[in-house]
């Protein structure tokens, strides 16, 4: 459009805007993931670095190629691909061959994100589908866990719980700090909590999702724990182990794939929580965070549809 430079600009109100934008938000998420990243690198060393780098690089490259191929404006400054890549690498075992990590990342970006129209339009959480894809494709490599720091093959806390192999369960404090086997970014509860709080503080995520998610898991496992006689230890063990915290703070809160209504987010969280407990206790896998969130992603459009808020001045039912 030709513009005559001396003309004033006419825009529609509002004429000012908060400094918040998509690139900034994504940068904040990356920042919030930093503690978990450092913990992962410290505990799992070079192999973890390899997985992380290959995931992120593959995500970036795939994003670039997709944008090019689809003739869209090549604009990857918003870094959502990096978030996807990083989050994917965080729920992979540290010793995964890096080509698998890269493949999973590319699958996440190409199939799950760009075939659906790109940023903001995907229905499923790309990182989690990436993980589920890898788990179903390479079950051997994806269930090979190593001890932090020394890299010896071992089982994860939930694996021990599920298989009842007789190995001792780790102490809660170990789970809190992260000196247990598990995926790269999930072992240290404290690091994840720091990141989660930062996102809450920055207003990028809504407290309802993590609270209802974790609350549901806590309540259900507390009931089971009481029946089994495990006491408070049992629900806490469930809260702190596996990818639960990572999922509750970073993945169940993904803007794109979760409900937009407040009530919807609570339902989403409760649904995730119930499914996690169902899968962990009754299902075939020791851990179910990824699947629970994915299953709730499937339901999200319906949740959104049936949890519309009441309009202001439209009757007194609570909104």
């Amino acid at each position, binding site marked *: 459009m030709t513009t005559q430079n001396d003309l004033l600009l006419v825009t529609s109100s509002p004429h000012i805007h908060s400094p918040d934008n998509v690139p900034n938000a994504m940068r904040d998420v990356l920042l919030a993931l930093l503690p978990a990243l450092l913990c992962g690198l410290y505990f799992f060393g070079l192999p973890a670095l390899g997985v992380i780098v290959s995931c992120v690089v593959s995500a970036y490259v795939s994003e670039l190629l997709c944008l090019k191929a689809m003739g869209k404006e090549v604009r990857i400054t918003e870094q959502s691909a990096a978030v996807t890549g990083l989050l994917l690498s965080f729920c992979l075992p540290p010793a995964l061959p890096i080509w698998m990590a890269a493949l999973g990342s590319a699958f996440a970006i190409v199939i799950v994100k760009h075939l659906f129209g790109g940023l903001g339009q995907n229905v499923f959480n790309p990182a989690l589908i990436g993980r589920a894809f890898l788990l179903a494709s390479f*079950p051997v490599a994806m269930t090979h866990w190593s001890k932090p720091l020394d890299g010896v093959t071992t089982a994860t806390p939930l694996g021990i719980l599920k298989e009842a192999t007789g190995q001792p369960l780790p102490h809660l404090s170990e789970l809190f700090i992260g000196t247990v086997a598990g995926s790269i970014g999930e072992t240290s509860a404290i690091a994840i909590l720091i990141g989660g709080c930062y996102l809450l503080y920055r207003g990028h995520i809504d407290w309802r999702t993590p609270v209802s998610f974790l609350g549901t898991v806590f309540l259900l496992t507390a009931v089971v724990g009481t029946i089994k006689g495990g006491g408070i230890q049992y629900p806490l063990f469930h809260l702190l182990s596996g990818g639960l915290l990572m999922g509750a703070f970073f993945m169940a809160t993904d803007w794109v794939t979760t409900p937009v209504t407040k009530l919807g987010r609570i339902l989403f969280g409760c649904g995730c929580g119930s499914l996690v407990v169902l899968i962990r206790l009754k299902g075939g896998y020791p851990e179910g965070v990824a699947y629970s969130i994915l299953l709730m992603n499937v339901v999200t459009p319906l949740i959104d549809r049936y949890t519309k808020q009441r309009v202001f001045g439209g009757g007194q039912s609570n909104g």
Partner: protein
Amino acid sequence: MGDIIKLGLFLMMVAAVAGLGVGYVNIKAAPLIEKQILEEKIRSFKEVYPEGDKVENETAKYLTAPDKILKEVNIAYKNGTPAGVLYLAETKGYAGPVTILAGFDQASGKITAVKVLNQTETPGLGAKAKDPAFQNRYKGKDSAVALEVSKTPPTKENQIQAITASTITSKAVTKGVNAAREHFVATFGATKQVKTGTVQ
């Protein structure tokens, strides 16, 4: 009214002709199919217990009450005397029922072979139970001791190494073998001294 009868008659005719056709093919094919099934069975029996010269289905005799796992008990005769026992067992695997055939030698009290007949496990994972590599792990195991599945290379004689990432399938097969083994020991084991093992 006439129309309606006509419709009825027409469909009747079509159905009758169809029945005729199918019936005819069935008459021709049924014996072949039966033969096929029988041959298949004999082939399996041969694989699992190569030494017998005749196999009799004696399920009625040995399984008085219907069993949850064991479906058939076949006795293999060598020169007219019972020499081996062949069990058909069905257990629940990862994706559905797994049926196996397990052969035992009465003389040695050892497992002669195990063959997975039918399964619907995941290709590439549980479906590897059909691979000889896995089935051979049961060969020659002693019937007196309960078999266990281990994820790591076996350290004990009674351990069977699981198919990687398919513990469930491996356990299913082993469960079938163990059921057969117990029945074998209880029914035919008298001829041999029962060894004590670590039975879980």
